[in-house]
């Protein structure tokens, strides 16, 4: 028998690992990430909302990444003004980049849909605002109450008529309010960071072209929902 393939394999493996150690590792060590411009850590309520987002599994239907416009339509769809960068995620632990788009990307949903009431209605009963939606309702984050049992501190969800039993109202639980605060905080479309060096690095590392790309359809498609 011949052992040629064994030798080839051993050689390839050695080469491969040498390459990783010698080329890739030092290259990787040269870059550091700072938060992108204006990106603040989550406030307490947003962080709570993020935990609800995880607990209820929004990530299995919604991504949070805007990909390079040179080979996707993410930017053209109005999901963000530029591709997202590592700098946009420094406060995210764990990441929620997602792998499915059963629903739209949410990385910039705070810019696109800034109205908290819309979100509350949508979370309680998605088909009340989007008839073709297949998003599940998240009723357990709300309470159904008699209309006269509502206190001054309660947030009543302004559902369209006919969506709640007569004489009752839907009150958002604190988790629902936190979740909406988190959604509204999702806005990662500021022009890439001011520090020029960093900027170049992150673009290089993310495989974008030389020009930071902005939405081709002119200004930010704020508040306009693409559907």
């Amino acid at each position, binding site marked *: 028998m011949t052992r040629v393939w064994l030798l080839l394999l051993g050689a390839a493996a050695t080469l491969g690992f040498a390459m990783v150690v010698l080329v890739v590792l030092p290259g990787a060590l040269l870059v550091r990430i700072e938060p992108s411009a204006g990106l603040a850590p989550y406030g307490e309520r947003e962080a709570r909302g993020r935990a609800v987002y995880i607990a209820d599994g929004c990530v299995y239907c919604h991504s949070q990444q805007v990909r390079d416009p040179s080979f996707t339509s993410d930017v053209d769809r109005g999901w963000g003004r530029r591709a997202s960068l590592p700098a946009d995620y420094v*406060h*995210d*632990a764990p*990441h929620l980049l997602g792998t499915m788009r059963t629903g*739209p990307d949410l990385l910039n949903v705070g810019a696109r849909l800034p109205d908290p009431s819309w979100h509350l209605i949508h979370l309680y009963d998605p088909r009340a605002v989007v008839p*073709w939606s*297949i998003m*599940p*309702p998240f009723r357990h984050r709300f309470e159904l109450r008699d209309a006269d049992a509502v206190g001054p501190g309660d947030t009543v969800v302004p559902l369209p008529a006919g969506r709640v039993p007569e004489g009752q109202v839907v009150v958002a639980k604190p988790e629902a309010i936190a979740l909406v605060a988190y959604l509204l905080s999702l806005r990662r479309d500021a022009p890439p960071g001011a520090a020029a060096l960093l900027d170049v690095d992150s673009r290089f*590392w993310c495989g974008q072209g030389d020009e930071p790309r902005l939405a081709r359809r002119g200004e930010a498609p704020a508040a306009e929902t693409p559907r």
Partner: protein
Amino acid sequence: MSAAPADARREEIAIRASADASSRAPVLVFFATAVAWLLFGSLAGELASLALHWPDLLGFASFLTFGRIRTAHLNAMIYGWASLAMCGVSLWMIPRLVHQQLSWPRLAMAGAALWNVGLVIGIGGILAGRNDGLEWLEMDRALADPWLVAGGACVGIPLLATLARRTVDHLYVSVWYVIGAFLWFPVLFLVGNWPFGGVESAAVNWFYAHNALGLWLTAVNVGAAYYFIPKVLGRPVYSYQLSLLGFWTLAFFYALNGMHHLIGGPLPTWMITTSIVASVLMIIPVVAVAVNHHMTVVGRFAALRYSPTLRFVVIGAMAYTAVSLQGMFTALREVNRITHFTQWTIAHSHVGVYGFVTFVLFGSMYYVLPRLAGREWPSARLIQWHFWLSLGGIGLYVVALTVVGVLQGLVLLEPSAPFQRSVEVTIPGLYARSLAGLVLGAGHLLFALHCAALLRAPARRAMPALLEARPVVVRDAGAVQEPAS
């Protein structure tokens, strides 16, 4: 290899019998609990599927909302069904292959118990809204994972101890795969659960999830295929060199693959490109295994009409080739820009975890369980039904979701197409998938009942439950006899 002296032969049979006896109890426990999780996972998967086209169906209970029940399905199938059944197959194969009794079988039993406790806590937690937030690693890292780690160790340690006390010199290729899997998986699981942040969290997440497939699920099941195919056919693998080449290239290339789940995402291009290159390199181990299995079976495909084991395992091996080639193709940017984020991915993962892993595990259990029980499967017809329900179900599942996945991807790439269209084109596929889920679930139910009947009922047949009771006409039509018992 001709006519070994009679007492040597008798001794060999004694070795096999004592190996089988040593692993019997733990293997039975692993298989029984695996089947229980298979049923639970099927139910959860079906509910998740229904929730996608009838979104208001399950809104009344928090634990039934899509995000939770879907996640319970994944974890029940991967860590419940597949992993437990794989532990059973490993515990059964290794003592046989190294001609030694299983060391510390009680420890392995304890492992099954610990692992199952971990699953109940972990999956119960997911349903109650305790989720670590990383795909494939949702089970609570403080409350559930320690049980799993302890349980896994209680399986791995007896296996390694058995290996250390082996009475054979050479390690058969299946041993390589199984032992490799049991060495790699704990490392992967620990790193995967390390709480990273930012995009590193994503990189580590997909590093883990992809390797859980490649170095755990794939490794054990390819190892099993390398055992059962030659064993049933009575023919050695076509090329043993090729089988070792396949193992070592898998070991070297697989670890680099994970970042292809993040193509286009906010990660350094070099990482993603490295993964794409490694994904394409996977053609070496995949083709090595495919050619080898095919050439082993070639000319004997008629055997698939007799042996339930062979039928399931050979189809599983074919699905392995298919899913790997599909994965390689999907890792190319041109394809990925269409298929990423769509139902295509769901179809792909089911070719892998069902068509390949689950089929090989069914086949293995059809071989192992009667040997543990000391009696034959009660009904050949039930096996037939199980086989055709599984094959028909997964076929429908994969075709339906692949087609609507491509449509969905094309709509999403078209900036002027409203998002609504991307939802609407998937709906027929989602209905078909629910139907497929029912078919698969029916097959699983039959299988579970059949297992229960095998273990509980007294022996009713002396002959093995072969699918083909009457002789088949083979190509060069020689005299064909009734199958020997």
